[in-house]
């Protein structure tokens, strides 16, 4: 076989190579034919194929002959050939299938309880699998609906983060936010880019049309947006949109909200984005589906964004997510070099400066540009983005579904084994009459498949029924009608057949293994040893116990968070955005409101701040004695500390009357520790790195409070009244008296609308804002609790059935014991003892594993409960009492039977 290494330059040699290849092709073809073709037919077929090959060789040339040969051979790969005479015995067996079906349905009908237990367990398992299939399918379907999805990329930047480096993490932090001029330069100088648009969402504006005034979320985009993405434009022309700066595009929902049934095109509305402007509606675009990474309700040209003009030359302001579409057949790798040159040209000096300022080690780049394919955005957790989800959740959910279906399958197996006594005679007689083991296996396999299919129907029904709550739990918008039907049915069938096989194979093998002579001779007790059931039950218990422990820990942690003293009062506080933009006006709103509210007795405090809890934060980095430090900064007013009831460890609160307080700061204990101050009140914090002056005077120290979520430590923070440097009061906090909240809310609203009839009254409750920080954890707690519930339910059903069989097996024994004078209690004890042991064994296996898993989970909280022995004790007790409760029904029933009843037939 030297042709592989041979050179193809030499003509004669290449001829040789070719014929060698041909011979090989023919040989290979024939070998494949030989593999599947019954030997007695092989020669005739091979001869015919070769004859055709020779004919083709003479008439149509070598290439065609070869192709025909292979093609003709492949056509022989059909059941008529390879199944021929091989499965004749099997084929005759189909005669029995009618009988199997009849026996199976009779058996299912006769043992209603067991069939019910099996069917319910399996249906719940299948329903879970279906739901989780839908979930995973939805995760994978993100952004797949865009026609140009393969050519659209989101640009990401990776830059060196001093804070991450300080924390000892990998310092290159990825983000989708880019400087505005970078995008412009890319579009102008890199020909591979066909379209480019920024996409800034998450901002709000006050939308006004006639008497309708509401705050709306708006997204800023560019004209290319409509050419790149496949969101259907329902009215207006995609090519023409956003030629003018004052155009606006709405989704049908918004259009109906403001214009009712009237045609929205051409309507003029007022939008207040840091200043009012008239906008003309030029298009209606369909709202993105739930599986879109881009979501919006209102689109506005990006030129209207506040700071846009200023940011056009700001290479240092990273605030514009940028999407590009490349010309067909280009990939970002093609012009990576050009991009690097471009960045160097435009930003080179700046980057050098940053490296120097930030003391960035040479081995890391300061700034790097990379790309994420549109369809990869959703599962890319490196770059934070709206709706991004961790693929590990799919795995966790899949695991849960698997566990539940496993538990249900175990029910089937253990019940089939324990009740197998009643099938023994049947098996014996079938064997004597001439059934082969293979036939019996297929008979019992068929039975489990029938049950699995019945469960499939119930399971699909359950899945449809539970889809809305499931959507709520997982925060998804899955619609059963939008699912690919073929794929769905295919997977459902696959799951069902798989379950049928997994659950049915062991019982089928076990049942078909009886020796007919032994079975039919009789003379053995009605009790049957199926030793394998015990490990199965232990395993089932183990799974349930682990889930119980996890749920209890999660519940405890959530409870801990809910009642944990955060160090400030967050009850009865309304958070109202001042809706006046980022300027002096905002401060005035708070002042005016405070004046009006002073006459309202139900309002106790009014305070202003730059950002309320869970509504954002800002953080400043500064250098003190060549050391990098950072602190969170909140712009507040004097009422802030009073309203939140912050405790002052040292010093005092701000005072309006003291002029110097406007540049003073109040710090938290963490900052004092960070700076290593002994007498903080004598200190100045030079956080703006003034070369002249000492910085801000510290006038007070507040006790640490959790201004961030409990996932984080309490980090250095200070409060300031310095509006020029720390911002304006964009949020107003209003504290009301305890009592009827809706009445208080009305009063607050009345004051607001009295003052600002043209501004929408948006509000949230601070305690809810704080609680919302843990929504994702709560969601997972609910999912775990729900699955635990189902898992336990199914396991208990199985246990119930098992206990029933066991009690029946021992009726005679119980009768004799009672005759001999056994107490009810001792019989109960005897019957339940083994289950207690099984439960304890399972539990001792579950405890360390769930301890490990839960320690990991709690690791994401800086403030977490410690997993103590009492958690395990509670879980064990709960599990055990549930198990005992389940098995006791049968035990009590069996123990109460009059012994005469059971013994008189002897």
């Amino acid at each position, binding site marked *: 076989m030297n042709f592989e290494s041979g050179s193809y330059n030499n003509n004669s040699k290449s001829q040789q190579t070719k014929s060698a290849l041909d011979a090989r092709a023919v040989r290979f073809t024939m070998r494949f034919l030989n593999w599947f073709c019954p030997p007695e037919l092989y020669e005739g077929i091979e001869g015919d*194929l070769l004859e055709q090959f*020779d004919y083709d060789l003479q008439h149509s040339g070598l290439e065609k002959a070869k192709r025909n040969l292979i093609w*003709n051979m492949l*056509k*022989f790969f059909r059941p008529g*050939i390879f199944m021929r005479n091989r499965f004749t015995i099997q084929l005759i067996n189909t005669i029995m299938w009618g009988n199997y079906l009849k026996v199976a349905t009779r058996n299912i009908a006769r043992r209603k309880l067991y069939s019910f237990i099996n069917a319910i367990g399996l249906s719940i398992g299948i329903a879970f699998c279906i739901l989780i299939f839908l979930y995973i399918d939805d995760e994978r379907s993100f952004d797949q609906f865009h026609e140009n999805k393969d050519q659209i990329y989101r640009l990401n930047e990776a830059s060196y983060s001093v804070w991450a480096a300080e924390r000892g993490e990998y310092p290159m932090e990825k983000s989708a936010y880019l400087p505005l001029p970078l995008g412009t330069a890319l579009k102008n100088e890199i020909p591979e880019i066909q379209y480019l648009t920024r996409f800034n969402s998450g901002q709000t504006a006050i939308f006004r049309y006639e008497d309708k005034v509401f705050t709306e979320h708006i997204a800023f985009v560019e004209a290319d947006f409509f050419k790149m993405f496949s969101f259907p434009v329902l009215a207006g022309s995609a090519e023409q949109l956003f030629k003018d700066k004052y155009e606006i595009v709405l989704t049908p929902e918004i259009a109906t909200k403001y214009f009712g049934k009237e045609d929205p095109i051409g309507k003029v509305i007022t939008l207040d984005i840091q200043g009012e402007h008239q906008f003309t509606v030029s298009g209606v675009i369909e709202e993105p589906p739930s599986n879109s990474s881009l979501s919006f309700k209102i689109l506005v040209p990006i030129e209207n964004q506040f700071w846009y003009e200023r940011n056009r030359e700001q290479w240092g302001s990273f605030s514009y997510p940028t999407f590009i579409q490349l010309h067909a057949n280009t990939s970002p790798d093609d012009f990576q070099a050009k991009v690097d040159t471009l960045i160097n040209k435009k930003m080179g000096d700046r980057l050098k400066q940053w490296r120097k300022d930030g003391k960035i080690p040479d081995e890391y780049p300061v700034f790097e540009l990379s790309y994420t394919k549109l369809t990869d955005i959703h599962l890319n957790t490196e770059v934070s983005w709206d709706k991004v989800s961790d693929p590990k959740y799919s795995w966790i959910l899949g695991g849960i579904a698997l566990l539940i279906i496993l538990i249900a399958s175990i029910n089937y197996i253990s019940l089939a084994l324990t009740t197998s006594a009643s099938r023994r005679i049947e098996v014996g007689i079938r064997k004597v009459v001439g059934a082969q083991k293979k036939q019996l296996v297929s008979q019992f396999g068929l039975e489990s498949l029938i049950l699995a299919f019945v469960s499939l129907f119930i399971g699909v029904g359950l899945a449809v029924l539970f889809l809305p709550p499931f959507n709520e739990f997982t925060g998804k918008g899955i619609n059963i009608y939008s699912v690919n039907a073929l794929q769905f049915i295919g997977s459902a069938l696959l799951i069902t057949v798989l379950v049928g096989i997994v659950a049915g194979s062991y019982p089928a093998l076990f049942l078909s293994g009886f020796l007919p002579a032994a079975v039919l001779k009789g003379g053995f007790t009605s009790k049957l040893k199926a030793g394998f059931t015990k490990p199965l039950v232990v395993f089932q218990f183990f799974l349930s116990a682990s889930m119980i422990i996890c749920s209890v820990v999660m519940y405890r942690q959530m409870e801990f968070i809910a009642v944990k003293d955060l160090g400030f009062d967050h009850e009865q506080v309304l958070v109202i955005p001042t809706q006046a933009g980022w300027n002096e006006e905002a401060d005035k709103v708070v002042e005016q409101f405070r004046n009006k509210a002073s006459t309202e007795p139900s309002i106790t405090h009014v305070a202003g701040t730059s950002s309320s809890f869970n509504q954002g934060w800002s953080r400043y980095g500064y250098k003190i004695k060549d050391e990098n430090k950072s602190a969170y900064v909140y712009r507040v007013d004097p009422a802030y500390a009073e309203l939140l009831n912050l405790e002052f460890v040292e010093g005092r609160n701000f005072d309006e009357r003291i002029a110097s307080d406007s540049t003073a700061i109040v710090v938290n204990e963490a900052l004092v520790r960070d700076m290593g101050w002994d007498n903080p009140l004598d200190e100045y914090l030079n956080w703006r790195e003034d070369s002249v002056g000492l910085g801000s005077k510290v006038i007070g120290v507040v006790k640490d409070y959790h201004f961030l979520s409990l996932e984080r430590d309490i980090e250095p923070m200070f409060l300031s009244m310095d509006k020029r440097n720390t911002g304006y009061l964009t949020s107003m906090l209003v504290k009301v008296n305890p009592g009827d909240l809706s009445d208080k809310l009305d009063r607050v609203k009345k004051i607001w609308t009295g003052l600002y009839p043209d501004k929408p009254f948006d509000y949230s409750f601070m305690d809810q804002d704080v609680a919302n920080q843990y929504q994702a954890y709560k969601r997972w707690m609910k999912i775990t609790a729900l699955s635990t519930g189902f898992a336990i339910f199914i396991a208990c059903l199985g246990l119930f059935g098992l206990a029933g069989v066991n009690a029946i097996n021992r009726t005679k024994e119980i009768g004799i014991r009672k005759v001999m004078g056994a107490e009810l209690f001792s019989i109960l004890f005897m019957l339940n003892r083994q289950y207690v042991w099984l439960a304890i064994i399972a539990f001792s296996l579950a405890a360390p594993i769930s301890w490990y898993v839960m320690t990991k989970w709690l690791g994401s909280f800086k403030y977490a409960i410690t997993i103590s022995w009492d958690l395990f004790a509670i879980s064990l007790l709960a599990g055990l009492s549930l198990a005992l409760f389940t098995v006791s029904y049968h035990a009590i029933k069996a123990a109460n039977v009059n012994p005469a009843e059971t013994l008189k037939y002897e």
Partner: protein
Amino acid sequence: MNKDYLGEFEELVLTMVGILGEEAYGIAIVNEIHERLGREVNLSAVHVTLYRLEDKGHVKSRMGGATNARGGRRKRIFTITNAGLAMLKNMKEARIDLWRMIPQLKYSV
């Protein structure tokens, strides 16, 4: 009743076996069908049909002598049995009977 019925393709192949006599084997039948009817049929389909006809007892097969033509492979020669011949005849007659029942004059111009 299964044995009394032939599919269209089965009937075609069976007829060809009858026509070709001693030279009826897979590829020859394919070529014959092509020549006489201009119809392209699949070699594997012909084989499968032949085996099925054999199962039903309409043809029988034996291996012919080796030649040089087919890489030395022998041909599997099929011959039509009396049952097969009767079957063809029955089907033909039944068809002609049916054909006669069509009121043809009605449609003549």
